[in-house]
């Protein structure tokens, strides 16, 4: 197992190098002076042209492309991500500030969609071709067809504006003292995001479960005279879950992307909102860094998925 993990980790490295290289290329190609991105605005404010040129030389901006790339990579490893062009705040600070909000929303939505999706998918597979299954299938199709922002708008109108059950947006308010206070704010966005992802999980669980209960080892279990719930849950579901884990795992990083629109509608102060602002103001360093962060999370998630799949499915060979 350990050697499997290490081998899998090693395959991540070339991909990370390619991705960081592309992002660096993007930064080089987009307009904007690299000095302001690297040095911060205070240092820039009182400088003459000669001083700037000297600074450029001392920062190594006149070096060759590859040298600059590896220096940039080294800085990133030390935690120096550069500065936002519009506010001058270090990008590291911005991400550290915004990431918890996004993770909170994403994890809540992930939890909702996973639990609801697997239960409904399982139900659908076990009642195959019965009315329950038909209704759930059509409901799932409707779920993936409604744009999530439209879904969010309807929820916002009904539950926040008309019924007044939930706040219209935001995350933390000055009057909140206990963590649980802001559950009210979290509720609507996470439900909308969660429900919009449920259909995918449900469909996947259903087909995966149908696939498994027709396998020989499930028939063996049945012929041994095991009770039906044991067959379904221990023999069928455990294996059927593996592909579902893959799907859920891939949703994990998508959530940074997936929550962009929902964060905008509910004024959720997360990475997605920051990303949109950066895109609008063409704040390239911030755009690139958030993109890189999301890529990093995708790669990390796919690594974790492989490990978990190996643990869940006894048929996966580790060597």
């Amino acid at each position: 197992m350990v050697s499997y993990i290490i081998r899998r980790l090693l395959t991540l490295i070339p991909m990370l190098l390619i991705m960081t290289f592309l992002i660096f290329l993007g930064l080089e190609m987009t307009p904007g002076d690299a000095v302001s991105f690297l040095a911060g605005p205070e240092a820039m404010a009182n400088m003459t042209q000669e001083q700037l040129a000297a600074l450029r030389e001392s920062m190594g901006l006149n070096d060759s492309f590859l040298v600059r790339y590896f220096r940039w990579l080294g800085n990133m490893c030390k935690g120096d991500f550069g500065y936002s062009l519009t506010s001058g705040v270090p990008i590291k600070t911005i991400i550290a500030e915004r990431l918890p909000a996004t993770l909170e929303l994403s994890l809540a939505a992930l939890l909702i969609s996973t639990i609801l999706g697997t239960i409904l998918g399982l139900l659908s597979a076990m009642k195959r071709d019965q009315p329950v299954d038909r209704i759930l299938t059509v409901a799932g199709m409707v779920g993936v067809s409604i744009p999530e922002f439209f879904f969010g708008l309807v929820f916002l109108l009904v539950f926040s504006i008309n019924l007044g059950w939930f706040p219209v947006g935001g995350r933390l308010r000055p009057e909140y003292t206990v963590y649980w206070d802001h559950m009210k704010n979290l509720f609507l966005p996470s439900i909308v995001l969660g429900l919009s992802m449920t259909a995918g999980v449900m469909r996947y669980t259903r087909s995966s479960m149908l696939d498994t209960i027709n396998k020989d080892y499930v028939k063996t279990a049945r012929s041994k005279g095991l009770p039906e719930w044991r067959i379904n849950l221990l023999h069928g579901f455990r294996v059927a879950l593996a592909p579902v884990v893959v799907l859920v795992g891939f949703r994990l990083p998508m959530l940074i992307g997936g929550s962009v629109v929902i964060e905008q509608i509910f004024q959720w102060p997360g990475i997605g909102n920051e990303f949109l602002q950066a895109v609008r103001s063409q704040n390239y360093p911030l755009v690139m860094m958030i993109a890189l962060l999301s890529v990093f999370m995708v790669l990390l998630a796919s690594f974790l998925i492989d490990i978990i799949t190996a643990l869940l499915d006894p048929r996966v060979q580790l060597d």
Partner: protein
Amino acid sequence: MKHRERVLQAKMDRILEAEEQGTYSKKKRNRVVMRFMNNRLSLVGLVVFAIILLMSIGAPLFTHYDPLKISLKEVLQSPSGKHIFGTDKLGRDVFARVLYGGRISILVGFGSALGAAFIGVVLGTLGGYKGGVFDKCVMRLSEVFMSFPQIILVLLLVSMVGQSMGNLIMIFILTGWGGIYRMTRSKMLSIKQEEYVQALKAFDVNPWLICFKHMLPNALGPILVNITLSTAMFILQEASLSFLGLGVPLQIATWGNVLNAANDLQVLKSYWWLWLPVGIVISLFVLSINFIGDGLRDSSDPSQMG
């Protein structure tokens, strides 16, 4: 019993007769169509799809309003006989905007799906058949594109190249070809093992002919399904991006741009006709495409049934 036998007998005769005339195989091909027609949901989908598509294409027949004409005397009127979906903040007729907007939204969705499919299918066919360095490079490239969450990559590219309809279609193609490429490639890899391909190879048939004329048609079913479903996806993406104000430029009417008005809480609360009907139209249209795609999958690939 006697009667049934006679009916069967007659049917058999008909088949034999058709076979003699050489028309039987044509009937057999229609089985896919027949199975599709038997799927009630797909049929409903097809009807809804056709209605919305035709109304968008023939927009001038259904409304005499200009979707871009500003009329400050008729601002924010609620739906009435004169304006079916009411008017917006600038007095533009919302119904006309939805109809004309459909043209652009469907064009963006379908155009992007076709473009992505073209690139994906060509690369996937060649890569799957030939393998080697070319295949490895393209596979790596698709991995790079697929490592980004799609909307992040789309927004990143929008920020770099700027907003326009052409750019948006290009970006969608660039970010969307990976999925269909992988599917075509894996399909090709399995078709490659079949005996008829081995035979063609043994006869030294031109490899281009083998993959595009003899192998590709056998992978067409899933490709068609993929094009359908990605059209739905791109329409949804265009709507989201335009809703955020980062898709097609605002002066062009598209479904997403009409919905853009709902960014304002006041509009959301008091002027439902500005965003509710168009939201429902998008949902219905995408739903109908998804139903069609599902029906196509069931009828073209029996192993996927159920």
